[in-house]
């Protein structure tokens, strides 16, 4: 005689529990898959829209080459500048406690939250000809808006926080016993930084630089607002994509695929380099 099916038997309860736990372990997998589709599908759709021959023939156009070159040059310069100027700040935040530290942290994070167009207006109001600092600069004969320098400044503003935060996390992870040992051996702070802190936090620095560079490469809103749009001078790839999108969707797609490929290549290289075992 079988018990009525409504009553839970120990084994059915077990099945039930197993079902739940299967669902609970399955759920994150499904969530992950959904997220992956959301991330990958748009990029894949861009890549497969044009036949490869069509894509190749568009990529040689001088306007595209010019925009790509400008994008690479400006994003590399801004990443280097942010690294040089950002490391002392990251070091300070990682190693010292001081009044107003919270405020400084928030100030450094804010550019990541600010809509890039607003960032562009802010840059104009600061470094523009009539701006708070720009007025003085312009008296010296230096005008920044509509120049390649403006493109670099816009990239530094929006992408810089990524480097500072990542480098700071790297510095914080350095075991203090090494620093104490160095201090006992009377190593100068500069020596300690260059020979101990920097090598130990290199993976974080590389990751931070990669994030900064990627964000700089994709910068659009602050650039078009602060630097304007002029081929060869301020028209970076994202601006060229935007302009192309308004008249020729396929040209915009070709440009985007180009940008995707270059970025994928460089990010992959950086990942490989930073993951390589060090002796």
């Amino acid at each position: 005689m079988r018990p009525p099916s409504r009553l839970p038997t120990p084994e059915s309860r077990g099945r039930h529990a197993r079902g739940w736990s299967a669902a609970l372990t399955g759920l994150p997998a499904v969530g992950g898959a959904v997220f992956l589709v959301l991330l990958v599908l748009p990029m894949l759709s861009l890549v497969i829209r044009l036949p490869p021959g069509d894509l190749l023939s568009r990529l040689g156009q001088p306007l595209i080459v010019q925009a790509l070159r400008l994008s690479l040059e400006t994003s590399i310069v801004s990443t280097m500048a942010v690294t040089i100027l950002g490391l002392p700040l990251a070091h300070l935040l990682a190693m010292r406690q001081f009044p107003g530290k919270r405020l400084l942290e928030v100030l450094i994070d804010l550019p990541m939250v600010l809509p890039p167009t607003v960032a562009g207006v802010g840059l104009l109001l600061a470094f523009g000809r009539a701006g708070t600092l720009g007025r003085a600069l312009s008296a010296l004969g230096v005008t920044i808006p509509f120049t390649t320098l403006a493109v670099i400044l816009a990239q530094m503003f929006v992408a810089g926080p990524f480097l500072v935060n990542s480098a700071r996390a790297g510095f914080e992870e350095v075991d203090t016993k090494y620093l104490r040992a160095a201090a006992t051996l009377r190593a100068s702070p500069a020596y300690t930084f260059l020979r101990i802190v920097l090598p130990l936090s290199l993976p974080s620095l590389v990751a931070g630089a990669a994030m900064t560079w990627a964000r700089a490469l994709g910068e659009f809103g602050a650039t078009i607002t602060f630097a304007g749009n002029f081929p060869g001078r301020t028209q970076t790839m994202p601006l060229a994509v935007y302009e192309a999108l308004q008249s020729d969707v396929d040209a915009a797609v070709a440009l985007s695929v180009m940008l995707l490929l270059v970025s994928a290549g460089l990010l992959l290289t950086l990942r490989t380099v930073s993951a390589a075992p060090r002796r």
Partner: protein
Amino acid sequence: MSIRATTLLLALALAGAGGLAGRGAQAAPSPSPIEVFAAASLTEAFTALGKIFEAEHPGERVTFNFAGSQQLAVQIEQGARADLFASADQRWMAYLKTRGLLLGDPVIFAANRLVFIVPRSNPGKISGLADLARPGLKIVVAADAVPAGHYLRQALARLSMAPGFSFGFGQQVLGNVVSEEENVKAVVAKVQLGEADAGGVYRSDVTSTVSDKVTVLDIPDPYNVIAAYPMAILARAQAAKGARDFGRFIVSPLGQQTLRGFNFLPPP
């Protein structure tokens, strides 16, 4: 700190998504609004027209998407939901017509003329149109794909033949261009902020909020390009009746009078 910041950001993002979803759910029961895609230069005038229309037609709601005509045309082509399209030139209306995306023929409802504007502070010391050719000036125009930019290039070519202007005038002015903006309002912004020495825009862009910050340099009529603004109901319109009512209102005496108030010209 960084994990907490990430959690906070995630929470904010989810709250934002929830808010959006909630809005969508709320909007469903009320009648669908009339979606109007209109050229950036129509921003102020159409916003005012929409308010008057809604007051006259209780229950109707008009929502706007303002951007460069070329951008709107591409959005519509790519399947954006829109009921009425008002373009700053015939080129982008024709673009949609040849793709079978219009319901019926476009109607010209207004016209506009081009002017140059100079910041009140006049950093480039420009006193007339002829000064625009002086080397070293920073001039901002709309890109050629933008109707205003396209017309401006035509007007500059015509001015090159005008008495009092050098034959290379147009090329010299274009040589001073430091930025090709994606819509005409961005040109206004850069002149208003004093970053550009001059910019080419529509007369209607010199709105009451702008007029005390810039000086207008008129381009004489024989050399000016008069932009005709066409509008049309779209083939995929979901609120075609409401869109038609709004279109009729725009060409009505009250609608036309409102447009005049925003410095638009009557249809040629």
